[in-house]
């Protein structure tokens, strides 16, 4: 039994939803090159684990299932799964708080976002999972949303322009079971300047 009630499973089988997705993905690669599908398939394992156990992670038996499906040696799958930190090789909480700590986010206050996650989520630091099993926080490298820094990625969703207060608010909402709309929390349109667009205001025909 690992922490937070998620045991290392002894077996893993793709469910119908996963199988349907795998079929589509594998068909993208030429015959004999199925091993190229290893990364999307690991994502499928992670999503299926989320559906089934409410913890998005890739157990070892899941990697074995991918290896068997793609005709690879299991170690080749282990290598990929452990290389990319997008795959969680240990169970995580229901919400994966991924704080970007790369320079632009850090300059724009990612430390405050991290502190808010710690305070509101009752986490001791990066890598920790809260006692209630709701949150796991990790530090990630650049998420590519620098214009709207700092970014907090919750599972697959980006929350942008975060600060301490908005992070606490977000986490409280998650605790209540709500899922606030992803994107900029200060209401800016995509990556346009704060307060609205300043150029291309008079587009012909509009």
């Amino acid at each position: 039994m690992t922490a937070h009630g998620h045991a290392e499973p002894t077996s893993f089988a793709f469910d119908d939803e996963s199988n349907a997705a795998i079929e589509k993905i594998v068909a993208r690669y030429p015959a004999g090159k199925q091993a190229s599908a290893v990364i999307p398939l690991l994502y499928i394992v992670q999503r299926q684990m989320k559906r089934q156990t409410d913890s998005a992670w890739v157990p070892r038996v899941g990697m074995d299932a991918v290896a068997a499906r793609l005709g690879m040696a299991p170690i080749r799958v282990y290598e990929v799964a452990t290389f990319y930190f997008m795959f969680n090789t240990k169970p995580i909480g229901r919400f994966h708080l991924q704080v970007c700590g790369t320079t632009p986010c850090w300059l724009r206050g990612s430390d405050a976002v991290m502190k808010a996650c710690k305070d509101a989520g009752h986490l001791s630091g990066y890598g920790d999972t809260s006692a209630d099993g709701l949150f796991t926080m990790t530090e990630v490298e650049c998420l590519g949303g620098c214009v709207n820094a700092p970014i907090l990625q919750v599972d697959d969703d980006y929350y942008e322009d975060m600060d301490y207060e908005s992070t606490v608010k977000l986490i409280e909402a998650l605790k209540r079971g709500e899922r606030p709309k992803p994107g900029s929390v200060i209401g800016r349109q995509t990556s346009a300047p704060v307060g609205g667009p300043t150029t291309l205001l008079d587009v012909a025909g509009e």
Partner: protein
Amino acid sequence: MAKVTIDGIEVEVPNGASVLQACEAAGIEIPRFCYHERLSVAGNCRMCLVEVEKAPKPVASCAFPVADGMKVFTDTEMVRRARRGVMEFLLINHPLDCPICDQGGECDLQDQAMAYGGDKSRYKEEKRVVKDKYMGPLVKTIMTRCIQCTRCVRFSAEVAGTSELGGTNRGEHMEIGTYVEKALTSELSGNLIDICPVGALTSRPYAFVSRPWELRKADGIDVLDATGTNIRIDTRSGEVLRMLPRINEDVNEEWLADRGRFSFDGLKRKRLDRPWVRQGGKLVPATWQQAFDAIAAKFTAGAKLGALAGDLADVESTLALKELMANLGSSNLDCRTDGAAIDISRRDFYSFNTSIAGIDEADALLIIGSNPRTEAPVLNARIRKRVTAGGFPVGVVGPHGLDLTYGHDWLGEGGATLRALASGAHRFCEVLRNAKKPMLILGRNALTAADGATLLAVAWQIAAFNGMLKADWHGFNLLHRFGGQHGALDLGFVSGLPMAKMLSGGVDALWVLGADGLDLSAVPASTFVVVQGHHGDAAAARADVILPGAAYTEKDAAWVNTEGRVQLGYQAVHPPGEAREDWKVIRAASAVLGKPLPYDTLEALRARLVSAYPAFGHGDALPRFGCTDTTGPAGDISRLTDAALALPAGNYWQQDPISRASETMAECARTYAAPAALAAE
């Protein structure tokens, strides 16, 4: 071909060769860790940096292809500085534990640090530490020493064919290992120790045993399988401490199977170190004279005599025994102690005629009743290499579901399939007949079945029918199992009564040479049994006289491998106690028996060998030959039964008296018989 100038030396190398290969052609040694000529190129250690004219940066020579007219400099200030930088980075996380490291003295990193290492470290931060991994009873790991060259990863994936090692995690946290803790399942795992350039993978049985400069080295031949692997026997104070492969491109390349490498501790246990004579039903210690006198009393003129030569008998002593028996008036000889129905009327009926190197040329393979992976792991690696190169379909007749480390087409279990293959009715015949150089490998063990002789004839017929026997190509191969088997057949040690008759009272006195593992318990009490060998195994229990002989590490002797290659092994240590080289024992016995053999030295014996059997005069050269006479061995194909072909019984690690006496091999058998429960790290 491309003309390349290396440090002013002009060499011509094939297009596509790497700069490193060109440097070697010019006789310039390039330091390297990750590059290994028998593995794919990784290019990750960066130690082989050289300067190429017009290239702005130093280039990794192992991964840089040559171009015509290229000028390469291997000893400029830029190169030296670059290599020194690489070395400094490699040493950042490498522990300075050379004094307690088993690789010390034969470590690539240590040697190259002498040339490119700094005199002091500028690294003040904490070094990383990596937890050691469990890889089974043979390979010991000290993973903090690993420099992540990935040679072991590539070896296990490419040569051994058991992809079990990999690099997990990344960057600072990258570790080489199996991820899921398990013992390596390869029969070639000992080679990981050789290819590891540092002390990360070392020999577990050899841990803290000796330093390389304390060792005396002798060239030997591994006889525990029939590949005839060239080995180096390292000894100290009369004790064998380890075995390493020697390079022989035609036989073992540079690999050695685990049984051959690790079972030598069996040479120190259960040894016959003095003569024994049975008195009043019990074996009692005796002197050589008493033993010979006891033999002389039974090996008399009127008695019916017989002799057996076993799996581990060397050529010289087998010849001496044959000539002794001839002088005593007996022609009852048999060297097929496993009961294999081998026909010695022609050499190519029982040889690996294609030759091991010839596998590289073949373009289709049919395996009958053999699992080369466990019967000859190094030869199997050769097959795997050929399969990996492509265009080499492999069909298997034998047990279903063998893991040969390469893909194969399972054709059937036995008789019915073979009949179809011999008559052309089988779908695989199409594959074989379309091939230019098809070959088949027949496992010796298959011939031990009741219809062995028929099976041999059928296998030959399959070869003949499917175009394997041509004037310039011989595709019929018998895969023997031990180093003494082919040589005894070459000496014609098969005549008179067959073994079964000799064992069931057909002779009054029986001389058993080099067959320590042979079960003689069924021999009637009326038969007087002389057992000459080195291990107190099954045969010694039934002996009336035991003559202690020398194991393969303890004598100068010739061995013939499965392809008929005659190779000399040299004495590395003395036999224990009163044991003596086997030919000397037979020579001494011949004098007591009143029929002295006409040779007093090994040279004289070998001269006699060559004059009587000229095939032994060619040294270890092996001429390639085709097959012009396709008449097969005697046997009626219609009598072939449908019985499934059986593989040798027992596990890979314990197949002969030496490996059965070995603690290391016993531990392997325990480990692999009941694999520990798998657990993720």
